[in-house]
């Protein structure tokens, strides 16, 4: 029987039994819908991370020196404890790294944490507080819309000055010029000297709700009571110099800490590519978990289709007998039922794909999660639909094909 004929027959059967067909394809529909939504969101995040996130969080051509790796996909309890036992980073280590690197590397000590900030008469609000060196502004390429950044002289003298993000400025100094005004962070007053231009957000987390003060101010102790450093961020002049800079820093730190050749590093070096590979790991997990649930929907959908097709085979036993008497071969009967099952399932997948695109767009609109519908996922949805239908149809179809025409014709 020609393929087109089988599809026409399947559509006819589906048209005659609309309600039954709808319930049959519900499972596949829901499965594919969530599959498309999840894949779209993961793809959207992935686009976002590759284009914006890495540069915003880590910076361009930079690496971080820290106690433990900044991005960890999976580490067991023991690994975490080992990291916790490592010595903390203090100013001397930063000095060692600075001395080990040529002059065209930019280096900044960084401490960061959420701390309450306030001005008299306003409710305190949590802001991302950063205590760092003057070079941090160059490393992050922060542009200023008002005032200026602090200088390394101000860092050296421990000047109580602060540069604030645009959201902080608009919250505390609505309609006013913030420069020269006071901001209390963790209970101590700082003078605002500049405002950073708007940075946008990463995964719905505002990058403009930050305050930056010299690392030598009491802000450091407010963040890390022991006075240690969260990480040292190093920017190379260009991409090629990153590896060399990392090796120089590693050797210098190992020497400073007196690590023997057989001992492991007791610090971590993280690049933006590490952040990307961290995200790749995260992405594969998201895809795995995100697709596992819809996959259950698809399995249920397949079982429902198989069941409905088995019912169809027994309801249409006589029809199968007639078809066989009129010259249908086994493969014609198999084709008929397989095409019917896959047509059902593909229609379900198409409706599901449409709903999935809608769901992805809805999620992107009402939540900070980005979504981007990958064309391949729509193709994949149709292939999945056909696959589910064929898989679910094989057993009923082969039962139908094996029917003895004489017995089938005698069936009432």
């Amino acid at each position, binding site marked *: 029987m020609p393929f087109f004929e089988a599809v026409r027959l399947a559509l006819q059967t589906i048209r005659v039994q609309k309600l039954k067909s709808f319930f049959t394809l519900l499972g596949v529909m829901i499965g594919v819908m969530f599959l498309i939504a999840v894949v779209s969101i993961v793809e959207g995040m992935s686009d976002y991370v590759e284009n914006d996130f890495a540069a915003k969080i880590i910076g361009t051509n930079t690496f971080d020196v820290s106690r433990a790796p900044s991005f960890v996909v999976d580490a067991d309890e023991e690994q975490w404890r080992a990291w916790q036992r490592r010595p903390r980073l203090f100013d001397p280590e930063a000095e060692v790294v600075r001395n080990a690197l040529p002059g065209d590397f930019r280096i900044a000590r960084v401490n960061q944490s959420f701390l309450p900030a306030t001005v008299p008469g306003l409710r305190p609000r949590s802001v991302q507080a950063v205590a760092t060196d003057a070079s941090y502004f160059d490393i992050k390429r922060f542009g200023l819309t008002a005032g200026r950044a602090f200088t390394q002289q101000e860092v050296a003298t421990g000047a109580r000055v602060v540069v604030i993000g645009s959201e902080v400025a608009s919250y505390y100094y609505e309609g006013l010029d913030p420069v020269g005004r006071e901001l209390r962070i963790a209970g101590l007053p700082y003078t605002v000297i500049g405002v950073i231009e708007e940075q946008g957000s990463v995964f719905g987390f505002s990058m403009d709700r930050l305050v930056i003060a010299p690392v030598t101010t009491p802000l450091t102790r407010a963040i890390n009571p022991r006075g240690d450093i969260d990480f040292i961020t190093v920017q190379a002049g260009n991409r090629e110099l990153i590896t060399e800079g990392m090796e120089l820093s590693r050797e210098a730190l190992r020497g400073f800490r007196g690590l023997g050749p057989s001992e492991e590093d007791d610090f971590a070096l993280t690049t933006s590519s590490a952040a990307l590979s961290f995200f790749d790991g995260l992405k594969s997990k998201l895809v795995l978990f995100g697709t596992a649930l819809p996959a259950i929907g698809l399995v249920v959908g397949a079982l429902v289709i198989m069941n409905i097709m088995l019912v169809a085979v027994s309801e249409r036993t006589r029809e199968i007998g007639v078809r066989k008497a009129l010259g249908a071969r*086994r493969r014609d009967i198999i084709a008929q039922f397989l095409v019917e099952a896959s047509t059902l399932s593909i229609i379900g997948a198409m409706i599901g794909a449409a709903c999935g695109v809608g769901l992805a767009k809805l999620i992107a609109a009402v939540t900070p999660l980005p979504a981007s519908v990958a064309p391949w996922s729509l193709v994949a949805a149709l292939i999945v639909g056909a696959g589910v239908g064929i898989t679910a149809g094989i057993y009923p179809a082969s039962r139908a094909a094996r029917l003895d025409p004489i017995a089938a014709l005698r069936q009432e």
Partner: protein
Amino acid sequence: MSPDLMEAPAGTTPERQVVMRAVGQAPSAEWVIVTRGLTREYDMGGEIVRALRGVDLAVKRNEYVAIMGPSGSGKSTLMNIVGCLDTPNEGEYWLNGQLVSEMGDDALARVRNKEIGFVFQTFNLLPRASALANVELPLVYAGVPAAERKQRAMEALEKVQLGERVHHRPNELSGGQRQRVAIARALVNDPSILLADEPTGNLDSNTSEEIMKVFEHLADSGQTVIMVTHESDIASHARRVVVLRDGRIASDETKAQFVARIGAGQHAH
């Protein structure tokens, strides 16, 4: 069933001797059906049922044959084998020069499609398909292109005077009309034999006569017709009547011989 049928002589008439000669010879173009010693046994839960015990039958092209017999005589089994729905345990079945008793499933499906037109007691039309779609069905399995299929199906329906009702579904047609759709479907592939199983079993006597006229007309126009029935007045529409009893041929007569014997038997009682 009249007891006279049971006593009918087999293999004695001159006609039967011609048939037996055909059975004994290599298949020729003249004989569309030749069976030699057909045996069919069923295993019914350990008990062996011998439905056919060596049936020798030959049917010429353009013959109109009725196969009669009481239930359990093996006539349904014979019809299934002749219709290539079943294969014998022993014996040979030559259909149109092909040894179909040795064929596999798919080859038999091909033969059914090309050589045999079935007409069933219960019509066996697909309920959700129009008359036209039902008649097109054998052509679909023969791989005929859609346009030609439709045209041939229309012609077949016109031949049975249903040209006006091609888009009706079976439930919108009367019993006689349904059986005529089934006849159109049986003929659309130009089969070697039209095989009818109790074609009037579900019809009233007027409609039965109407269907018998269609068969007669087909036989007149050169179509080989084989009709299985248990009603002697239906069988007497055929030009040759073969009676089966206990899986063997009990009699094989011309219509005249059959009617004379039945008539005599009926008068005797």
